[in-house]
């Protein structure tokens, strides 16, 4: 019954969606973005192919490879599952429960985004040196990835309604059953989108797993570059990673496809009941506090302990730190802009149109996220030298690399926020004589802006922490905070690294703060 209600309200707003063919301009732009996203894939095929079939077979049949594959899949599954189990209740509390210091919890929930996985892992290792292997990697990667689920689900809950739950309750369903029938379908696409980002991220992660000595495909790829000096070995292993990423993306699409068709948008029904927790307030707050405390509090505490060492402060070059901070800001902002430009046509296409081509374009857009940064970095070295040699080793190419690497993080946000804009509003605009582009700019983009901004911020915060592609593509002599950090941890000079690590977390906390509910509130305020 409640499903029918949702179906009808969704049908009212998205009746025409998916039936019309996509406009040529949009499709062309999406295809261009898709071509850009496939640069790393083309590169991989070229490199993997250059070794010949024999090399591929030798590498793939090494006795260790099945173990690496199993480790990779197990870790990605476990981290993704745990992030959903923690992220959805967290989002629910943030969006629907009456909590003291509500904004504070919203900000804290987003803050783990600011902590690079290698820093979190380092913080844990400094505290408990015996940590290693699967459980340590699972713990740290889960801690830093939970916001990828929490943020979109909280946004979906805020935009959604409890009206359907109420219908289910009046028809005699218990509260859990009512949630399952009324609210879960509304947040399912957001949950899946977040889970997809987590899963692809874990596939490509190198920093934490290498510190915890958990052998996965990315560590093997790094070893192939590090010791065999054989690029085709590395490319063959990376191709395996791409195949895994394709499975993950297709799986998410299949799961979402059904959900999206049944429950498009429920705009216009946004009645929300706030839940009073009463005796459950303390446990709820404990749940909200534990992830930020372990993901942010612990590494920051370790950093401060290091920071207070006299030698660290004496050795600090303030001008150097300032320049690295500026570089980091400019490059990540540039990366976010480029990622948005690439992700917009793909996200809008995926939100408004269906079909095999649309699905393929969206899938390819996501794949770069499943690749280790070193592979994407090398592919862009290859690309920029053969296409734009004049721009090689300029900031522009590095920002472009960030755009390619992280545009998947913006695609989901753009898609879901565009899908929530009723097409009937666009139709009204068209009947008033506005053109397609004008309508998009005046109606769709304006209403979807919080989502689009969130996508850009997510890219920016990730780009700030990026290391392997930055090492390869940066202009010679240009340092970012992540590079400075790397240069200092490399000589085991953790003390000297502390100021850079602290600044990086601080700077990355700004977009993370804006991504939390607090940031959203302000954006809304500006609009009116």
């Amino acid at each position, binding site marked *: 019954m409640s499903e029918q209600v949702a179906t009808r309200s969704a049908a009212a707003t998205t009746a025409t969606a998916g039936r019309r063919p996509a406009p040529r301009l949009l499709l062309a732009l999406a295809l261009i973005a898709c071509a850009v996203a496939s640069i790393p894939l083309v590169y991989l095929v070229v490199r993997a192919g250059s070794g010949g079939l024999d090399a591929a077979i030798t590498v793939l049949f*090494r*006795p*260790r490879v099945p*173990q690496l594959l199993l480790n990779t899949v197990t870790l990605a599954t476990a981290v993704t599952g745990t992030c959903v189990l923690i992220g959805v209740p967290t989002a629910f509390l943030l969006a629907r429960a009456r909590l003291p210091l509500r904004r504070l919890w919203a900000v804290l929930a987003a803050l783990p985004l600011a902590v690079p996985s290698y820093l979190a892992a380092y913080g844990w*290792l400094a505290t408990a*040196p015996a940590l290693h292997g699967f459980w340590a990697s699972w713990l740290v990667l889960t801690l830093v990835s939970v916001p990828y689920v929490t943020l979109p689900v909280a946004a979906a809950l805020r935009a959604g309604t409890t009206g359907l739950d109420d219908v289910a309750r009046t028809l005699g369903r218990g509260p859990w059953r009512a949630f399952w029938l009324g609210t879960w379908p509304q947040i399912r696409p957001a949950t899946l989108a977040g889970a997809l980002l987590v899963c692809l991220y874990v596939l490509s992660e190198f920093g934490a797993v*290498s*510190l915890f*000595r958990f*052998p996965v495909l990315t*560590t*093997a790829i*790094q*070893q192939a*570059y*590090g*010791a*065999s*000096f*054989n*690029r085709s070995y*590395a490319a063959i292993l990376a191709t395996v990673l791409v195949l895994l990423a394709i499975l993950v993306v297709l799986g998410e699409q299949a799961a979402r496809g059904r959900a999206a068709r049944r429950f498009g948008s429920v705009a216009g029904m946004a009645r929300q009941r706030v839940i009073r927790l009463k005796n459950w307030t303390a446990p709820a707050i404990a749940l909200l506090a534990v992830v930020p405390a372990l993901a942010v509090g612990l590494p920051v505490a370790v950093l401060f302990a290091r920071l207070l060492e006299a030698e660290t402060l004496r050795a600090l070059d303030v001008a150097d730190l300032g*320049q690295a901070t*500026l*570089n980091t*800001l*400019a*490059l990540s*902002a*540039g990366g976010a802009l480029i990622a948005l430009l690439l992700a917009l046509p793909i996200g809008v296409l995926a939100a408004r149109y269906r079909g095999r081509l649309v699905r393929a374009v969206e899938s390819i857009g996501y794949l770069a996220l499943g690749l280790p940064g*070193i592979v994407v970095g*090398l592919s862009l*070295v290859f690309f920029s*030298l053969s296409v734009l*040699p004049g721009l*090689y*080793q*300029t*900031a*522009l190419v590095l*920002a472009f690399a960030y755009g390619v690497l992280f545009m998947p993080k913006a695609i989901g946000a753009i898609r879901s926020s565009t899908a929530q804009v009723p097409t009937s509003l666009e139709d009204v605009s068209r009947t008033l004589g506005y053109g397609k582009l004008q309508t998009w700019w005046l109606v769709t983009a304006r209403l979807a*802006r919080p989502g689009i901004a969130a996508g850009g911020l997510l890219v920016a915060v990730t780009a700030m922490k990026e290391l*392997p592609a930055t*090492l*390869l593509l*940066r*202009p*010679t*002599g*240009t340092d970012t905070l992540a590079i400075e950090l790397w*240069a*200092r941890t*490399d*000589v*085991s*000079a*953790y*003390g000297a690294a502390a100021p850079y690590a602290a600044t990086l977390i601080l700077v990355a906390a700004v977009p993370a703060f804006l991504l939390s509910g607090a940031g959203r509130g302000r954006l809304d305020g*500006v*609009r009116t």
Partner: protein
Amino acid sequence: MRAPRFLTTAGITILALGLTSCAGASPAEDAAAESTGSDGELTLYAGRDEALIAPLIEKFTDDTGIEVIARYGSSSELNALLLEEGDNTPAQVFLSQDAGALGSLSNAGLVAKIPEQLAELIPAGFTSEDDSWIGITGRARVIAYDGEKLSEEEVPDAVDDLIAPEWNGRVGFAPGNASMQSFVTAYRVLEGEEAADAWVQGISENSPVLTESNGATLDLVNSGQLDIGLINHYYWFEDAAEVGADGMRAQLKFLPGDAGGMVNVTGAAILSSAAEDPDALEFLEYLVSEAGQRYFVENTFEYPLLPGVDAPEGLPKLESLVNADLDLSNLASLEQTQELLAKYGLL
């Protein structure tokens, strides 16, 4: 509406300013400067720590007036980068942590020959066989042991002992690390393929602790997580410089005469596009000059390769350590080593 437009404008301005300010040196200019005469400028890819190399470069510039544009990275990443750049590289000199990377550039035809009078300075076995690169410093493979659990006498004198049941689960190393693999190559050359196969099998069945790097291995020993680690000697000195020698729980044991105590070298090559560049040559000459070699001895505790320069105090003589006239940049041999490690699931 006003606020977002202001934000957008401000954002774009910051972005434009930022991107131009961090644009750094344009590679097109560097590439254009590859003439036969000295242009007083040199682009270096340095696969070693910036904190270590930057002061050396500063001295070089003071002495010669040649400006060095240095790009830092790990040797393996810069090696991958150079292979990808090919002849289009802006780099004139590559300074590498290990010989294998230099060998791969040489195989790809990307390096220029080192002039004979320079190449001759470094004794055979510590430099390339075909003058495609030159050895700069040496680092010994050593055993790092937990000084609180073990005395020096209890630590084996040879890696052969490490496959005994007594050391089950107590030995760690980084199988993917280039210098670890050089040691296995040395074992194959010195003791023969059969013995090497038996040793790798033995150690793989002795529940080894596998790490991603020498540094990580040493950290484990130093924090009491691991009894014995196979590493390069200078990592210990780097850590000791940070926390003081007294603060080091890990202690070193050198293995004179054993394959497990062999010597790896770091080296440098001139990229083929800079074959005639006098600045590049001058930089290499500086690295193997007495001043250059002393700098490494004093700052990294590595072995100097130029005869006549004394090794760091307290280290066994370079001659007492196994070298076996290995060609450390022989990649075909390296590949055999990797197959051996892969056979027993270590790689």
